[in-house]
């Protein structure tokens, strides 16, 4: 059995009437790891948020489908239950709700009523993943993200990824603010997910994450579009040479300069 297909066509997204995405085309299939790179402010995180249904982002044009189903018609929770997952750059703190209670609710949300995960099985699998990610056992009983350090929050996002086992995951700057040890652990968790039934879209600012997670495809976003796609070698070249050569090659002017010229 092959995995799911997330298909994004001509996606335009605005926030507070300012258009950020100006026609993004991208297809992620089960078994594939895609990396999206690009300078700051080019719409990478907007793409992630729009796929998941963040309340502030408005899709003005284009389509997103998951296995042919219209994702844009779905509520946020329906998108999750359909198989999408977003590891967020800034996860919310939920006071008074323990990480383990939350996780169990989330796992059960995907299961039929009457088919809830047995408590012992849940605890066993949670302990296993906590160990794998080098997370202190007591995180399970702490309130979700409350008082977590930046690194703990990122590990917690990957813990949720491993527990919820989505078909397609989007990782929004999962590497930001991580030291090298934490980066290795987080990468280890993501790599463990690799299978024909799991597709992943990795959004990152830095190439260094890709030293630990090898993408099958690399895409460069600029000014709200995917302007160049290639294999892992593209990431290496970006790391070595920066983004200027792409701008020159494609004749992209900086937006501010373009506005001044207009």
């Amino acid at each position, binding site marked *: 059995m092959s995995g799911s297909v997330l298909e994004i066509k001509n996606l335009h997204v605005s926030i507070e009437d300012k258009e950020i995405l100006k026609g993004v085309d991208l297809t992620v299939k089960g078994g594939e790891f895609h990396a999206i790179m690009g300078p700051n402010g080019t719409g990478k995180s907007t793409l992630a948020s729009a796929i998941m*249904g963040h*309340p502030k982002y408005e899709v003005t044009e284009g389509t997103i489908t998951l296995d042919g189903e219209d994702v844009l018609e779905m509520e946020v929770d329906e998108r999750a239950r359909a198989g999408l997952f977003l590891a967020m750059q800034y*996860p*919310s703190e*939920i006071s*008074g709700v323990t990480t383990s209670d939350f996780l169990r609710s989330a796992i059960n949300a995907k299961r039929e009523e009457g088919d809830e995960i047995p408590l012992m099985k849940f605890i066993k699998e949670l302990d296993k993943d906590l160990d794998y990610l080098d997370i202190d056992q007591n995180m399970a009983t702490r*309130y979700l993200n409350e008082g977590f350090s930046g690194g703990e929050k990122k590990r917690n996002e990957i813990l949720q990824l491993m527990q919820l086992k989505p078909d397609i995951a989007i990782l929004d700057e999962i590497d930001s603010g991580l030291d090298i040890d934490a980066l290795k652990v987080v990468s280890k968790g993501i790599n463990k997910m690799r299978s024909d039934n799991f597709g992943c879209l990795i959004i990152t600012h830095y190439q260094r994450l890709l030293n630990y997670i090898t993408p099958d495809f690399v895409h460069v976003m600029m000014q709200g579009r995917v302007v160049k796609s290639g294999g892992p070698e593209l990431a290496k070249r970006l790391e070595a040479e920066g983004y200027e050569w792409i701008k020159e090659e494609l004749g992209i002017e900086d937006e501010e300069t373009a506005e001044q010229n207009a």
Partner: protein
Amino acid sequence: MTVETKLPFNQEYIQAFSKDRNEPGWMATIRSKALEMADSLDMPKPDKTKISNWNFTDFQHSYKEAATIASLDELPEELKAYFDKDASMENLYIQRNQTAAYNSLAQDLQDKGVIFTDIFTAINEHSELVEKYYMNDAVAVDQNRLTALHAALMNGGVFVYVPKNVQIEDPLQAIFWQEDTDSALLNHVLVVAEEGSSVTYVENYISHNDTEETVANLVTEVFAHDNAQVAYGAVDNFAAGTTTYVNRRGVAQRDAQINWALGQMNDGNTISENITYLLGDNSNSEAKAVSVGRGKQTQNFTSSIRQFGKQTDAYILQRGVMKGAATTIFNAIGKIEHGGTKSNSEQESRVLMLSEKSRGDANPILLIDEDDVTAGHAASVGRVDPLQMYYLMSRGLEQEEAERLVIHGFLAPVVSQIPIESVRKQLTQVIERKVY
């Protein structure tokens, strides 16, 4: 000109009521004087809540004795949920309407001189002891018209007495079950913890009168003597037909502690005052309260800690969730009196609004008459954070479930402080029922 009394009770009635219960003279006198005073006293004036249209004074007072409870199997399921099934059923008092229907206290506590009995028995058998504390230093008869009415017509309650240096490990539990709603409940809870003693007391008020109207006028007085510790938990769960005035006060002497955890889950209009006096040096108090407002009910909660002693420590925490067209005012008042040097007063009040029509207000008040002190406050009124909802829903939780988690999390700091696990669970269920 004779005073036109609006109250449907006269001296004859009150004296007969007192005599029927073989009350000592001092009690009959309190009742009689209180009734005399009631008419000329003002109603309480809760800040920002108008209660002139509320009925606190027109009710039926006479009642028939209810059947006692021989075995707890006789209780309806709803009530059984309030205590642990496997528990020994010791240290339990159940009041059915106005009747002491079940009462047990562990033998070893009896041997140590602990008293845990209904208020009428206490007034008869421990007259001097009760007289010393009853409506003197905590709640005054003449505080307002409702306290006077309470004193005149008190018709139920419980007395807890912990002798010097006696530590009670297991909680004492009282259930005030208003099975019938014919008569108003004027319940009096008196807790006295002597020097160096400690006790945990938890009470539940339960009624089912969604439409029949009645009144609850409740007074609690807690006395913690030097170095005594009192943990007081409550879940108030009167149905929509009951209009409630509840006045819970504590007096803490040197090195004493009084901690309150109040689950205020009434469905009817409610005025609640919870005031603690930290008289002794180095005394401390935490006053924690939660409430869920729904329907058209109006509620006003005041939590106040007044600090007279030196190096006293006070913490007020209020959390409220409002839905429907409910209106709730939370007043948190920390007061450090002149002379209360090196004292600390902290407070936090937060209200979560779930509907457009609900209204909530949190009023943080700090009154400081001393220089060498520390104090802090936080207050907020807001809606469920859409980003929290987005985060939770992005993991597959339906909106309702996500909101449920946020609300439980919001109320957890108070709910988790309720001392008995079964009562805590019960409170959680009541919250669940009120929110959805």
